[in-house]
């Protein structure tokens, strides 16, 4: 089995985000980390390798800082890491990003399974995984909370995926693209040996020419969506109106009055 995990780097989920007058986004002193959702994809890949053998390659389209995400995945136990980047990739939307990732996966040639986290905690589009699947012409199995069966000989996969009304159980042939979600596993911590390996590892960078990508399909030229303006949301002023009656019964009765007046019950 050759399993590829696609990842990206994001500010820490605890980061205090801000935007300056020129529209530049800042995350204060917070570190750049692997997108937290991607840890579930890495963990699932490692478990599948432990069960079926093979190797796990982690890839990212991103600038030099993206190596932080790759390092974390290697420290968790992935075998190889590849970063894909050229300055032309700056400001790629999901259409362009999915093109680059699909081209890199095509170049590898022997991939059985491509794993994604459910979305990135920064841009939160939920789009790249499904878009890569469509570009590769592979089944897109998204929001997967359980890989119920995987048969590398028959080359089939069966998963349970989340929908609003419950879990849909679906089967598809390999290769396939799987989008993982929280609940599928409990991601492992990085090990001492893993961190040492990650620190010593070489992180090759593939250029657009190396993956056979056309420059006019990446970056701004290859994107459909632009995002000219990022701003802070309006903050709610003040604090809760604390409701306090003589007794618990009196207190809840006052609350019910308020909720009826608000017409929300």
């Amino acid at each position: 089995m050759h399993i590829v995990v696609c990842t990206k780097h994001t500010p820490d989920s605890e980061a205090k985000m801000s935007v300056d007058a020129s529209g530049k986004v800042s995350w204060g002193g917070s570190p750049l980390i692997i997108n937290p959702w991607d840890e579930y994809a890495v963990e699932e890949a490692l478990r599948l390798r432990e069960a079926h053998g093979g190797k796990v390659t982690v890839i990212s389209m991103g600038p030099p800082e993206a190596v932080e995400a790759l390092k974390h995945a290697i420290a968790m136990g992935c075998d190889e890491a590849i970063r894909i980047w050229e300055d032309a990739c700056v400001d790629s939307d999901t259409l362009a990003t999915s093109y680059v990732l699909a081209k890199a996966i095509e170049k590898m040639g022997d991939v059985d399974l491509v794993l994604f986290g459910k979305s990135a905690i920064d841009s939160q589009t939920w789009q790249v995984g499904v878009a890569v699947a469509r570009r590769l012409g592979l089944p897109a199995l998204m929001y997967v909370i359980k890989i119920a069966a995987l048969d590398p000989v028959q080359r089939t996969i069966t998963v349970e995926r989340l929908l609003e009304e419950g879990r849909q159980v679906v089967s598809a042939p390999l290769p396939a693209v799987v989008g993982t979600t929280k609940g599928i596993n409990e991601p492992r911590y990085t090990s001492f040996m893993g961190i040492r390996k990650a620190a010593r590892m070489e992180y090759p960078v593939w250029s657009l020419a190396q993956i056979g990508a056309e420059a006019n399909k990446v970056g701004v030229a290859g994107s459909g969506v632009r995002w000219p303006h990022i701003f802070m949301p309006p903050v709610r002023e003040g604090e809760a109106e604390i409701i306090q009656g003589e007794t618990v019964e009196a207190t809840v009765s006052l609350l019910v009055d308020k909720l009826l007046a608000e017409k929300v019950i």
Partner: protein
Amino acid sequence: MGNDIFVWVEQFRGQPVSVSYEAIGLARRLADAWGGRVTACLFGEEGIAPLAQEAISYGADRVLLAEDDTLADFRLEPQVALLAQAVREADPAVVLIGATFRGRELGPALAVELDTGCVADCTALDLEGEQLVATRPIYAGKLMCKCLVPERRPQIFTTRVRAFPKPEPDTTRRGEVVRVQPVLGEGDIAVKVTDFLEAIGGVSLADAAVIVAGGRGVGGPEGFAPLRELAQVLGAALGASRAAVDAGWIPYEHQVGQTGKTVSPDLYIACGISGAIQHQAGMRTSKVIVAINKDPEAPIFKLAHYGIVGDLFKVVPALTAALRARLG
């Protein structure tokens, strides 16, 4: 390119998904502003035809209706193939899709198919001059972003659940229903649905008007019992904080927050939830927030509109009893 707007109408076993009608309402307002038609795309199993008239009553001028067993149990491949073909034929300016699990698959898949842009999870969509500008939350709502699809067509937007008002249906509205055939046969579809496991327990979080949620203060799995009773009286969905889910007290499907679901109900009652920034990210757009917590310093009181400082095991049952008495 025309001025028309396409809306993909989502249904589950013949039950329409509310966000689709919210999107038709939005499409109607835009179409009226620039003089275009609204086409609803309704693709599903045999028996969904009655929803066509319903889509018209919410504001569609025309419905493309496909009834075929290959379109039962949402699968991406046949849905996107048919939607892409319909869009290529009619050349609409805009496609709107509800940002549900299914819609979040369909939007970007359609964008790849048509080599265009898809803006995810819009909470507002405004006409600025000739250009549609979407607003969407990023970084878990810590920041907002204006997005647009300046050149490519159609412009695809997925609309966040409950972000746009659902119009009042007008059953006297008349429209055209056009039958269309699926593009893919069963043999062309790689993914097979083998089973469906129903969600346990009542109202779905995503489109609930009222949510009762519990956190660390609930203390254990049995601590959710009084919350369930309150939810039942209110017809509410049951939510939970990450702390309660990670402790194994309640399944992940109930989690609200940055690593769970984003919800926007009319009323959110947070019980024993301290209100970490990650939890707030999932519920801060709720219309009215009530916090019940014994710690008066809990951050949730900074976000909530109404607060009760006290023991949730006393307050919640009293509230349930009061509502039962008052609402009948």
